[in-house]
């Protein structure tokens, strides 16, 4: 059977989704040609503003493996110029003629330029492609160097894109003004009261807004570039640059020229199967006109891509119409609109909550009997968007006011979501699809749902809802979530810890033979390494234990994205001498390392190759430094303020206590990383309550807080004990940490551990202060053993030739550098080159950077 030749014109997000869907499901041979106009791999156009937040073009590239598929030929930078429908072929700009069995038009849109004088002047930009934003950024940076004052940027168009562009201009240091011809911002999504609320939020962010302002022309200065705008009311606005975001036009030129039916307002007409007036040709995304409407949003384009792929493979899918739900991506400004937001359904009712002081305006649109959710607008607080959007068209099941009121009113209604509700709009997965994956494919957690359905694998915003659905479904099946560590051990970490302790077994092979099966994995091996470290005090690289370690523990450094490592020497309490700083500076300079301060008051040096680590550490150890264990599931840092030693307000010597604690717990292996903070007074400059153990000085002594957490799920630590002297403080932390180390689940930090613990903070207090379990003596002895056995892992490694063998780059070329490494200069230092920079040859620093000196 010969392969079906599929030609896809346009290489944007929708084309990429189409290919992804087609290739993953095709059971018959395919021969796909993808033709793009831009000289790039398909990228995330929706995330264009991320470009200004520091992401490079590489980070925005969509999943590459789709185009690496052997069935696909991708041609970038050679757009299709004409279609010969009679001969079933397309002709590209370079003259290549490519035949097709099925043709997919996914040419998207171009940014519209309004028909006003001066729209083509230098200094006037559109905001559509990576090239557009790159040019905009270069222009702003160039002008900023010439002009002393902040640049003035005007954005014409106050829709979603216009507001994002204004935010981007601000991010580049320019003053931004949004010019909107309608009476309100985001007029396609918001009504007047909601638009007014949004205006206040935007203005609070420092962006000027002019509504009802129709631009008559853009004015050129003496150098020929734009210098201002004039409006119909005779007023003017100065501008050093202008960004046009007044809408998009479908790229239907080649389709029109080929005689395909096109809509009155542009776009290639399609039916619900995405077929155009030619049965061999389909159109998807922004170029497609469905029921005489083209829509410039990616989600409906994705829906069309799925329909087209299904149809091409002989399936039955239909496109059910546009979902116009949108959410603004501008930091600090939360806006969303979904479903029938303008209440156009006959008899629709509004429920409105408005708090002008708090900058919040929310509206839900309900059916005439006030039961079914039809749509809504959320300004100032769109946290309910994720929960509400899937409910459109179904019964709300609760007092609508509960969804509108702030704080505690909204809980993600996972249990009662109808099967057809879309939970993941990126992958188009419904609640029913997730339930089915649990029932029929045996998925038991978010990771397996991601693999089976792709839900949650793209933007991740639905992960919590997916998790809720999975556990609700497992519960309804009468199942409890398995507590097995992994496929090799049926018991959870806590039980395994006890089993190893009681049995006295000291090697992985013996433990897995007695208590498990198989040869282990990257879950159970590091867990056992940690348990054995606590129980025996063995070095991370002692014998078989070395093979259990994650790469970070194995080479005692932190792996970075290019496979090199970062190095963090310990600086107890954040103290470092001038001599120490000079040594670190010299090492970083000699090895060409990128240096940055960490959040834990120490210095991180990046870009060290495997074979360089012992050379770097020899110099650090010689200068008196020791391992900072920044790589380990172990104590990281003890952050502190200067306390009574220097501070006018200090109550106790917080730095001295921080140094004492750091030296006591350094190298202590735990289920997850441990952090401590010590503040010298109630001003809490060390942010101690965000740490696993937080210590705050008071006139009565130390107050100890337990179970704090920064990171993705911040949590304030809770008061465990107050008014402690130094010795009592240390003893209680000893017991708290050791009890946690013995009883926590794999990779469970103290915050969730404390939440799960019987009695919570009160239960912990009973165990460590009142000895309710009678284990305090045991816990104290275990911690004393740790303190007694501590040795610097790096010094011990440097003294052992067998351990040093592990740092050879290649078994048959022990000092040869990884030839794949390449770097680019950035702000006076080196960083790993992106794939794009490697391809373009702009890599200025090769992998081998210098002769290593001893």
């Amino acid at each position, binding site marked *: 059977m010969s392969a079906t030749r599929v030609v896809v014109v346009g290489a944007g997000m929708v084309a990429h989704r189409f290919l992804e869907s087609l290739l993953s499901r095709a059971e018959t041979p395919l021969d796909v040609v993808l033709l793009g106009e831009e000289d790039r791999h398909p990228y995330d156009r929706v995330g264009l503003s991320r470009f200004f937040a520091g992401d490079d073009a590489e980070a925005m590239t969509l999943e590459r493996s789709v185009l690496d598929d052997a069935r696909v030929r991708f041609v970038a930078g050679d757009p299709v110029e004409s279609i010969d429908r009679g001969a079933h072929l397309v002709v590209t700009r370079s003259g290549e003629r490519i035949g097709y069995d099925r043709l997919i038009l996914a040419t998207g849109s171009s940014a519209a330029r309004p028909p006003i004088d001066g729209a083509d002047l230098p200094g006037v930009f559109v905001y559509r492609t990576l090239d557009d934003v790159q040019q905009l950024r270069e222009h702003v940076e160039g002008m900023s160097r010439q002009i002393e004052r902040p640049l003035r940027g005007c954005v014409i168009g106050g829709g979603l894109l216009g507001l994002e562009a204004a935010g981007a201009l601000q991010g580049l240091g320019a003053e931004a003004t949004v010019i909107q011809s309608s009476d309100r911002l985001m007029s396609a999504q918001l009504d007047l009261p909601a638009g007014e609320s949004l205006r206040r939020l935007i203005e609070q962010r420092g962006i000027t807004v002019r509504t009802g302002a129709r631009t008559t022309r853009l004015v050129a200065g003496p150098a020929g570039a734009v210098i201002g705008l004039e409006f119909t009311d005779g007023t003017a606005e100065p501008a050093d640059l202008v960004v046009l975001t007044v809408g998009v036009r479908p790229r239907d030129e080649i389709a029109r020229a080929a005689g395909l039916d096109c809509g009155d307002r542009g776009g290639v007409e399609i039916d619900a199967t995405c077929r155009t007036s030619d049965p061999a040709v389909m159109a998807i995304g922004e170029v497609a006109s469905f029921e005489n409407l083209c829509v410039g949003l990616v989600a409906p384009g994705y829906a069309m891509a799925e329909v087209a792929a299904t149809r091409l493979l002989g399936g039955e899918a239909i496109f059910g119409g546009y979902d116009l739900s949108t959410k603004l991506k501008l930091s600090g400004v939360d806006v969303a609109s979904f479903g029938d937001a303008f209440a156009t359904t006959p008899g629709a009712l509004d429920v409105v909550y408005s708090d002008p002081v708090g900058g919040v305006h929310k509206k839900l649109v309900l059916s005439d009997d006030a039961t079914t959710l039809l749509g809504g607008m959320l300004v100032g607080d769109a946290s309910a968007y994720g929960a509400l959007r899937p409910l459109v068209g179904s019964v709300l099941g609760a007092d609508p006011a509960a969804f509108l009121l702030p704080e505690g009113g909204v809980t993600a209604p996972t249990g009662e979501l109808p099967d057809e509700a879309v939970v993941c709009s990126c992958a188009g997965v419904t609640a029913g699809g997730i339930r089915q994956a649990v029932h029929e494919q045996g998925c038991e957690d978010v990771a397996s749902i991601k693999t089976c359905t792709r839900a949650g694998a793209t933007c991740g915003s639905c992960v919590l809802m997916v998790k809720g659905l999975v556990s609700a479904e497992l519960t309804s099946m009468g199942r409890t979530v398995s507590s097995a560590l992994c496929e090799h051990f049926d018991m959870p970490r806590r039980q395994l810890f006890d089993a190893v302790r009681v049995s006295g077994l000291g090697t992985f092979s013996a433990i897995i033979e007695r208590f498990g099966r198989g040869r282990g994995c990257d879950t159970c091996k590091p867990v056992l390494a940690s348990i054995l470290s606590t129980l025996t005090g063995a070095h991370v690289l002692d014998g078989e234990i070395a093979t259990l370690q*994650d790469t970070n523990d194995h080479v005692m450094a932190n792996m970075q994205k290019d496979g090199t490592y970062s190095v963090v020497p310990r600086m107890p309490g954040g103290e470092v001498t001038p001599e120490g700083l000079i040594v670190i500076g010299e090492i970083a300079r000699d090895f060409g390392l990128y240096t940055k301060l960490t959040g834990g008051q120490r210095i991180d040096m990046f870009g060290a190759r495997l074979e360089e680590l012992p050379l770097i550490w020899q110099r650090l150890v010689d200068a008196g430094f020791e391992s900072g264990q920044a790589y380990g599931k172990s104590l990281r840092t003890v952050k502190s303020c200067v306390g009574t030693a220097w501070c006018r307000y200090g109550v106790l010597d917080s730095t001295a206590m921080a140094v004492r604690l750091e030296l006591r717990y350094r190298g202590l292996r735990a289920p997850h990383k441990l952090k401590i903070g010590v503040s010298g007074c109630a001003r809490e400059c060390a942010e101690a309550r965000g740490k696993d153990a937080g210590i705050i000085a008071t006139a009565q002594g130390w107050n100890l807080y337990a179970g704090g957490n920064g990171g993705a799920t911040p949590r304030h630590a809770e008061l465990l004990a107050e008014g402690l002297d130094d010795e009592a403080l240390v003893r209680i932390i000893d017991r708290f940490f050791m009890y946690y180390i013995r009883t926590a689940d794999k990779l469970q930090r103290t915050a969730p551990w404390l939440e799960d613990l019987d009695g919570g903070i009160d239960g912990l207090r009973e165990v460590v202060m009142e000895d309710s379990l009678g284990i305090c003596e045991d816990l104290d002895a275990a911690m004393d053993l740790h303190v007694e056995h501590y040795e610097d892992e790096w010094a011990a490694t440097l003294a052992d030739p067998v351990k040093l063998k*592990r740092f050879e780059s290649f078994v048959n070329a022990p000092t040869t550098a990884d030839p794949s490494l390449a770097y680019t200069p950035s702000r006076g230092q080196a960083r790993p080159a992106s794939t794009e920079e490697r391809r373009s040859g702009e890599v200025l620093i090769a992998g081998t950077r210098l002769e290593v000196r001893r």
Partner: protein
Amino acid sequence: MSTQTLDRTTTTAGPTWRRVCSVDDLEVERGRAALVDHAQIALFLLSDGTVRATCNRDPYSSAYVISRGIVGSREDAPTIASPMYKQVFDLRTGSCLDTQGKDPARLRTWQARRSDGDVYLLWGRAS
């Protein structure tokens, strides 16, 4: 391709066994990288004594780090977990057993064998 008599280039381009290192250079269940011509190979000595060889490049991160992952098993398959984003590969075939929600990608594998205390790779264009 048309039939032709074999010339010198086609006969020499076939794979041959190439010595890489000695078995003692490897450690049970911990990988080592090797440089063969300009290719980076990851070598693994398993607990049953067999040697496995894959490409050292992690297809998900494009970094050359596979040799630095954790060796283990999944049912009957000996496995390597990439240290970068934790995808798990079958050491026998290179196929990905746990994609972590990403698209499937595989590791290239080579045949490896032990002989007289040395490790050999079946090396050449056609492997």
